[in-house]
């Protein structure tokens, strides 16, 4: 059955929607767009295990569902474990000849909270055991669904409801946990970061992740106008700035080798990115400078690991 194709800039994208309209995501939700694009790359031959979080809540309010692929929700921290069980179950059913369908791709989807904090144990276990699945972390940098509370993926200095700005506090006081490095430390074949502002890069990586033998991990930056307090129409623009300023670099780690996805001749100043978001508005020039220094340093390290000369 041939999908209808839309051609954009000489790239073909299926017209088929596997995450359809009628979901209740906020106006301008970057995560919903990320899910929509990822699903186009995944196709219909998947089973999705989805954690508690924004996407689950907006897309599966009984008796409605926005999913046109098989989909299961269980709890918050166990997505990787449930996906492991699905993988094992399908493997056995195929092996014992009780299911005749061809290979089905298994995808775990969870937010940053459900991955970096409460879900990290299950993720680590699944990666270590080597299940053939793709884990996608939709990172909107806080527990958005429950009201914008901080997670270990919240960037330094960002204001959230549990890392608020006050007399004694300037917002999140720790640096964002390096999830790709943690995933790569499990010796898996494929790790990547992506952002819907770079839609073809995102879709290519999802395809790569799904086709990888064994576990694969992708972290997708999901701009959240509600939680980041930015204008909904700027979702793509802000995602692009996150990449262009080095706050969220796009790269792949294939069998331990780093590869940058977007060549940036130089990083745009962070202030351009911060100025569009309410969660950073309180930062002093000094604080921005501190963050800039760290971002520059981290990006240089990344370039080094990717074997790119600074000159």
């Amino acid at each position: 059955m041939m999908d209808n194709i839309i051609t954009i800039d000489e790239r073909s994208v299926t017209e088929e929607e596997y995450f359809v309209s009628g979901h209740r995501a906020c106006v301008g939700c970057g995560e919903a767009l990320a899910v929509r694009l990822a699903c186009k790359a995944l196709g219909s031959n998947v089973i999705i295990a989805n954690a508690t979080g924004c996407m689950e809540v907006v897309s599966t309010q009984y008796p409605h569902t926005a999913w046109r692929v098989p989909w299961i929700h269980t709890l918050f921290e166990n997505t990787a474990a449930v996906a492991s069980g699905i993988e094992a179950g399908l493997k056995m059913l195929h092996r014992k000849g009780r299911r005749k369908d061809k290979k089905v791709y298994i995808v775990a989807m969870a937010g940053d909270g459900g991955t970096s904090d409460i879900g990290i144990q299950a993720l680590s276990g699944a990666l270590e055991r080597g299940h053939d699945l793709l884990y996608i972390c939709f990172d909107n940098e806080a527990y958005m669904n429950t009201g914008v509370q901080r997670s270990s993926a919240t960037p330094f200095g960002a204001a959230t409801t549990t890392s608020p700005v006050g007399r004694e506090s300037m917002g999140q006081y720790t640096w964002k946990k390096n999830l790709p490095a943690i995933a790569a430390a499990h010796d898996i074949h494929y790790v990547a970061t992506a952002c819907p502002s770079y839609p073809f890069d995102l879709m290519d990586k999802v395809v790569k992740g799904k086709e990888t033998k064994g576990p694969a991990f992708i972290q997708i930056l999901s701009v959240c106008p509600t939680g980041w307090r930015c204008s909904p129409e700027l979702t793509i623009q802000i995602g692009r700035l996150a990449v262009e300023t080095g706050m969220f670099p796009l790269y792949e780690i294939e069998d331990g080798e780093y590869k940058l996805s977007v060549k940036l001749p130089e990083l745009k100043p962070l202030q351009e990115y911060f100025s569009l978001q309410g969660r950073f508005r309180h930062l002093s020039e000094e604080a921005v400078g501190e963050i800039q220094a760290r971002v520059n340093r981290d990006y240089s390290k990344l370039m080094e690991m990717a074997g790119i000369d600074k000159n």
Partner: protein
Amino acid sequence: MAQRVGMEVSLAIAEAVKLANADVVAAYPITPQTHIVEHLAALVADGELDAAYIPVESEHSAMSACLGAAATGARAFTATAGQGLELMHEVLYVASGMRLPIVMAVANRALSSPLSIWGDHSDVMAVRDTGWIQIFVENGQQAVDNVLCAFRIAEDHRVLLPVMVHLDGFHLTHVIEPIFIPDQDEVDKFLPPIQYPMPLDPAKPMTMGAFNPPDIYSETKKAQQESLIASKKVIFECWDEFNSVFGRQYSPIEFHHGEEAKVLLLTMGSFSETAMDTIDRMRAEGRDVGLIRLRLWRPFPFEELRQAVRNAEVLIVLDRAVSFGGPGGPVCSEIRSALYNVDKKPKIVGFVGGLGGRDISAAGFEEIINRGIEISQAGSDQEFEMYGVRE
């Protein structure tokens, strides 16, 4: 013809899982269940059991993996005990709420703190309300038989609920008993292949576990409750069928001279075997005593219980767990509640004993019965008594 072998009960349970041709085993070790998962690992490693053995990183993930596997239509099994059962607590509700036919053997164990690896029913009582079908066994044979039954019950299209088989930690898991291990072809006759009606399938995409706003949640829960109640009939059918194939009959409530006696003792689990000795001895001395053995814990056999105690004057309930600050023994309080509206009912006396692996001897049971009769006549200023505590 089935072989009768002397086998450690844990290993026998693993053999039962093998006979059931489980597809996925999620395994996390915890005393005193370890021999079950170890033996299963060996069976898989030797190719005797063709299953995916997932050495998960915690019990929470063990149950989660079983969920995922069962949702694809695979036969999933796990085992746990005590702390492990507690750690997977929230996931148990998901299993029953999602109507997934998972089978779990629970080696009942006391709960920390203080840490205790020995057997009692605290872990069981903490998962009373999770919506699982729960069956207690008293010896190795029953363990093997009911693990096989568990799969059949769980997977029946009229049920589709997960099943726990409870066996006392150490008291059963680590003892060697004479057990008939059924033949594969007998088991195959009894246990059909699993056919989950709505598995995850790209050919028929559907959403499992859509969240329920307040205006529909109650209906979902009522549906779940009704299905648990309706499972009772299927459980009995299964036990009857088991009897016709293997010649061993199970019932929700079983007796040892309990049908007519005026004074009844009620126990669950391995206590029953010792208590049977006590009953025999006391009856030989002319005492009108009997033993009720509660096998089916959930769904609770209300009618069968009322029927069982209709002629008794005293019913002494021995719990192996305590509900702190509450009515004491959970089983006793359920029994009281079950009999509350019955006009002619025995006097009910509750005891808690055997916590954290503490043994009760046959003589001890006699003391309990005597003390129970005393309390039934003279009353007590306590809701319940803890047996055998050094004052």
